[in-house]
């Protein structure tokens, strides 16, 4: 039986296509891209060795640092907002709506599957000021305020991004966290209630610690996707005004395919990968400490 379960021919037949695809289109390009960081040029001009020039340029490139800062700010604020909104929704599903939550759950999940480009096009019109004030500005005017040029200013544009991101993703995080909350044994919560824990204290001392693992998984997921934000930026502001809302992903894309600097583009892609990797490790590390700490406190 061992020999059948370990049949070499079957293994090769079933695994080879995936492995081949994966190696040719993911593994090889990763190393190729690493190699390209030591060159400059593009497909038409050809490539010339550049030594460490790309890296020294990276250190002194203020556009790089600005886009990196924007990516960080975007990831940090969006992660906090998305996960907390999703968590509040999940609490609403589990403890307030209970069985009747299915419809609300489905409605809140709608935007998750929508194409980001379509959502961004929609939000562009919702927050428009020209040629005619969009619904948001119309509401502001209705209450006697002045229309705001939301996308014409870096600060307000940032908040439009945040609103759009929360609107689009909170349903996803709600379902993810919902799965974690449903797993909490009913008796535990019931006994805490009998012991006199009410709403807020129950959430703080029982429910949050018990759902911490899923919560942290959600944070890791949120950081990873928001740090790599690309579609919504291109469709909503295209990085503007100026370069004020340009994340690292878009800066890399522009450098490579608009300015045809493939070597430096690869260097920016490497920086993006390394930073994303470091963030994930950092979150995982601190999360492990948190879980053991709260676990110890309970005992």
């Amino acid at each position, binding site marked *: 039986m061992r020999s*059948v*379960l*370990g049949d070499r021919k*079957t*293994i090769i037949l*079933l*695994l080879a*296509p*995936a*492995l081949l*695809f*994966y190696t040719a*289109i*993911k*593994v090889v*390009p*990763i190393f190729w*891209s690493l190699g*390209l960081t030591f060159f400059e040029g593009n*497909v038409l001009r050809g490539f010339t060795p550049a030594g460490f020039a790309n890296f020294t340029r990276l250190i002194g490139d203020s556009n790089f640092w600005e886009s990196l800062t924007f990516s960080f700010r975007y990831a940090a604020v969006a992660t906090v907002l998305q996960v907390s909104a999703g968590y509040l929704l999940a609490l*609403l599903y589990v403890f*307030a*709506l209970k069985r009747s939550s299915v419809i*609300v*759950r*489905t*409605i*809140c999940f*709608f935007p998750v*599957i*929508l*194409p*980001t*480009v*379509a959502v961004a*096009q929609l939000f562009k*019109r919702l927050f428009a000021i020209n040629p*005619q004030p969009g619904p948001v500005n*119309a509401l502001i005017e209705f209450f006697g305020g002045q229309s705001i040029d939301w996308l014409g200013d870096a600060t307000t544009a940032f908040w439009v991004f945040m609103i759009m991101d929360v*609107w689009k993703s909170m349903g996803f995080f709600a*379902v993810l966290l919902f*799965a974690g909350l449903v797993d909490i044994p009913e008796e535990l919560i019931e006994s805490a*209630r009998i012991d006199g824990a009410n*709403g807020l204290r129950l959430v703080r001392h029982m429910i949050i610690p018990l759902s911490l693992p899923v919560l942290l*998984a959600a944070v890791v997921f949120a950081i990873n996707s928001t740090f*790599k934000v*690309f*579609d919504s930026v*291109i*469709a909503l502001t295209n990085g503007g005004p100026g370069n004020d809302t340009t994340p690292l*992903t878009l800066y890399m894309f522009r450098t*490579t*395919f608009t300015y045809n600097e493939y070597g430096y583009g*690869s260097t*920016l*892609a*490497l920086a*993006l*990968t390394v930073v994303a*990797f470091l963030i994930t490790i950092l979150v995982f590390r601190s999360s492990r400490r948190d879980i053991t700490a709260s676990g110890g406190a309970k005992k």
Partner: protein
Amino acid sequence: MTAATAPVVRRRRRSSRVTPGKIIIWVLTALLIFVMAAPMVWLLISSFKTQNEFLTGGIFDLPAQWQWNNYFEAWVTGNFATNVRNSVIATLPSLFLLLLIGVAAGFVLEVMVWKGRNTTLLLFLAGIMVPGQMLLVPLFISYFRLGLTETYWPFILTYTAMGLPLTVFMMAAYFRSVPREVFEAATIDGASMLRSFWAIGIPMVSNAIVTLGLVQFFSIWNDLLVALTFVTNPDLATIQVGLLNFSGEYGATNYGPLFAAICLNVFGTLIVFLMLSKKIMAGMASGAIKG
């Protein structure tokens, strides 16, 4: 008993009783549904307005006459039909190929016994961490030199490879939940592993395949990065690229057709989702626990 626990207990006993707590929940839920639905309702109404109505009329007014023509305009003049065709040609073959080779690899990595399978699984897993930008430059150079840019091939090849890590990893997890005895019994009965895979493995994880297929379908269908990088020819633009450049094609933006195009994109996706939502939700929940 404190005041805050009282409504909870009372609700348990008699669910028809209206309490302040319940009213707050109702108001919050109603507000939530409004915030989620209102933008889409506004989008739908605006898609039936004339340019003049949109520019000078009240923003919340209903159109005087429902302009179905906007949809015709978006579909034909706005190249939307071409974009949909391109998206289908790019998505379906990638999805089929991805699931076929991904499920096979997941089976080999979980059910079959051989040296180095954990290392191979880790190799696939590592791919989840790498952002797409890291692959763009070498892939562009390769496709360019092979003469594949401005064809559908970059879509199919890239989407298949990019979806593999998650597919292989998730399929291995799903196969883990199938009892090993099933495959061992089949082997004793004389089935080859290839036969076990087709006749037992695939049917037993068919629900998981559907779920994963849906997740991958949406991620490929909604992709912009790959679609924007490898193809510049408007005749090959996918639905997302088409929508991104929609306003450009008219010079001055034609709002009715633009909204109609967004509507087609949004409500088309919603219909697919509504037909299959139960499966997505169930799969998401089980995936979250296993992942």
